[in-house]
């Protein structure tokens, strides 16, 4: 079983130790990513999507700390690796693109040089070889006039182009896993569609698995193979994309899908009343209990539901489906 997995995250918890107490931002989340798979992590703001991705890359800074769990990548636990060895994996085998790519790029360095540095660091190429490869990688991701554009600085690119440069850069070493944190938020829909196509292409051609973090259920539906829904630091449901949108089981997933208007037909939408509970001293039971319409009094608020597999690969964390 485990040899079929690229990434296996088990019971990963990340807490933030702030003045007011402990924020349980990630609470024992588990998920698996298979080779050549686009895995979506969806949820509203503050649900812990970004912290999950940063935890995998060990980019959590104090007061945050990864308190427990395992992140097994190709058989090794990333959380236990010494810093030096981990640096060799991050950027080469696992890479990440961020939401605002123009701020993630170094504003004082030419694009070509920034990409070439990756080849020099991770593959030990010479300066001219690295630059040649940089031009090639820009071409691969359809940056027009790549030979000229390597001489440009990040501010000379439009947002969509900068995002493409970022993808080219992160795909430079043919990583096994690409983590994309809201890669298209803030872009226009037409540009968004192009960027998502590029990412799918990268998966098809190079077999890279992608962890796509997004708040947009439309993007997830059209891009991902499997999707996990996050709510207040828990993964409440994981399923194949068709199953999740057709037969959502968790009341939160159901409510979320009912709250989005559609462009292809007229639907009635309804909101989710109430608020996400504070992650400082969160409720002991289900964190959706106070907003849930199907709450079981006396059970949901008190006991944390277990994650159970309803169908093959369809996991849900809810008392409605037993398991307590």
């Amino acid at each position, binding site marked *: 079983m485990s040899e079929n997995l690229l990434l296996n995250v088990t019971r990963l918890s990340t807490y933030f130790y702030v003045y007011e107490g402990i924020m349980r931002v990630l609470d024992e989340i588990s998920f698996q990513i298979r080779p050549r798979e686009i895995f979506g992590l969806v949820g509203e703001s503050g649900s812990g999507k970004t912290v999950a991705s940063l935890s995998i890359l060990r980019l959590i800074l104090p007061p945050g700390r990864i308190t427990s769990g395992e992140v097994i990548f190709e058989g090794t636990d990333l959380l236990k690796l010494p810093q030096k060895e981990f640096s060799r994996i991050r950027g080469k085998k696992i890479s990440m693109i961020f939401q605002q790519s123009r701020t993630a790029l170094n504003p004082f360095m030419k694009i070509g040089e920034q990409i070439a540095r990756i080849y020099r660091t991770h593959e030990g190429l010479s300066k001219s070889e690295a630059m040649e490869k940089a031009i090639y990688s820009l071409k691969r991701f359809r940056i027009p006039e790549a030979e000229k554009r390597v001489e440009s600085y990040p501010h000379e690119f439009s947002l969509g182009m900068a995002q493409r440069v970022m993808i080219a850069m992160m795909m430079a070493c043919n990583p096994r896993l690409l983590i994309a944190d809201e890669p298209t938020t803030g872009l226009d829909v*037409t540009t968004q*569609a192009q960027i998502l196509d590029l990412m799918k292409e990268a998966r098809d051609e190079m077999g890279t698995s992608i962890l796509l973090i997004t708040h947009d259920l439309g993007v997830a539906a059209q*891009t991902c193979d499997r999707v996990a829904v996050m709510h207040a630091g828990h993964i409440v449901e994981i399923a194949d994309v068709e199953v999740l949108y057709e037969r959502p089981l968790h009341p939160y997933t159901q409510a979320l899908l009912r709250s989005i208007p559609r462009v292809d037909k007229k639907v009635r939408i309804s909101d989710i009343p109430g608020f996400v509970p504070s992650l400082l001293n969160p409720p002991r039971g289900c964190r959706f209990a106070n907003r849930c319409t199907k709450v079981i009094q006396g059970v949901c608020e008190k006991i944390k539901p277990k994650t159970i597999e309803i169908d093959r690969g369809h996991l849900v964390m809810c008392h409605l489906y037993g398991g307590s």
Partner: protein
Amino acid sequence: MSFLLEVKGLKKYFIQKKTGLSWLKGGRGDQDLYLRAVDNVNFEIMKGEALGLVGESGCGKTTTAKCIIRLIEPTEGQIIFKGEDIANLPKKEFKRVRKHMQYVFQDPVGSLNPRMNVKSLLAEPLRNFGISKDKDEIEEKVISLLKTVGLSEEHMNKLPRELSGGMKQRVGIARAIAANPEFLILDEPTASLDVSVGAKILNELVDLQRRLNMTYLMIAHDLSVIRYVCNRVAVMYLGKIVETGNVEDIFSDPLHPYTEALLSAVPIPDPNVKTKRIDLKGETPSPINLPKGCRLQNRCPYVFSACTSDEPELIEVKNRHCVACHLRTKS
């Protein structure tokens, strides 16, 4: 037909004074450059209608809206509100009209004064437009306003920072409807909100429009939001309106290639529905250096000779469905 608002030939050019470096932006260096943010825009809204203004970022949606309530002074054109041209009214007289047209800003955080509590934020328009001077009456009105937008009395003494994003946006809406305006401009009212909260705001907007028979101009880049709230749509590209029509017509049968591409790029939250993508190549040209002819010519998949020489005009092809494209109008 009687229109509540008619916009005729609206233009807004931002001048970039000549400098030694103007040639960098495509000028000759010895002349001023004009950034044509809004370039000859025409549309009309009937009473009780909700018009959605869509387009990519930088196409001039917000500038158009701000010109209408003159937060930005238009360069040229007529803005006829209830039969009166308000584009050149003196500031003092404009205030009388301004009472009937209000604006909900995109950024709920930046548009609320952080040092004013909710009560004084909502009392300000009531005092400003002379609706009420009596303290108790104002308080009563503030409470009823809060209830209209789904907040309650307890929020009255809160400061903006104590409210969530959704609540802030609702205060913004409450402030805009305080003076009982006939016309409301909504600039991306849900863009900064989570879907579950955005859904509530959208439902409230639909409900408000029905109850108070309000007229909306709603700006959004998200077409599904427009479909949910509006009954008319105007699609903008690079400072021009390229297509207008009823929501159902535009969404089911878009005539302009740009509208078509825009609609086909929206990801649908259903993995079983795959749209056939119409891809626009390249990038939007700079609004300083506009090409001769149609502005979409460098990206349009159907481009032909007429597109590079003449600029297409917005022409009515069906009932209240207008399009600015040589493909539809020259044949």
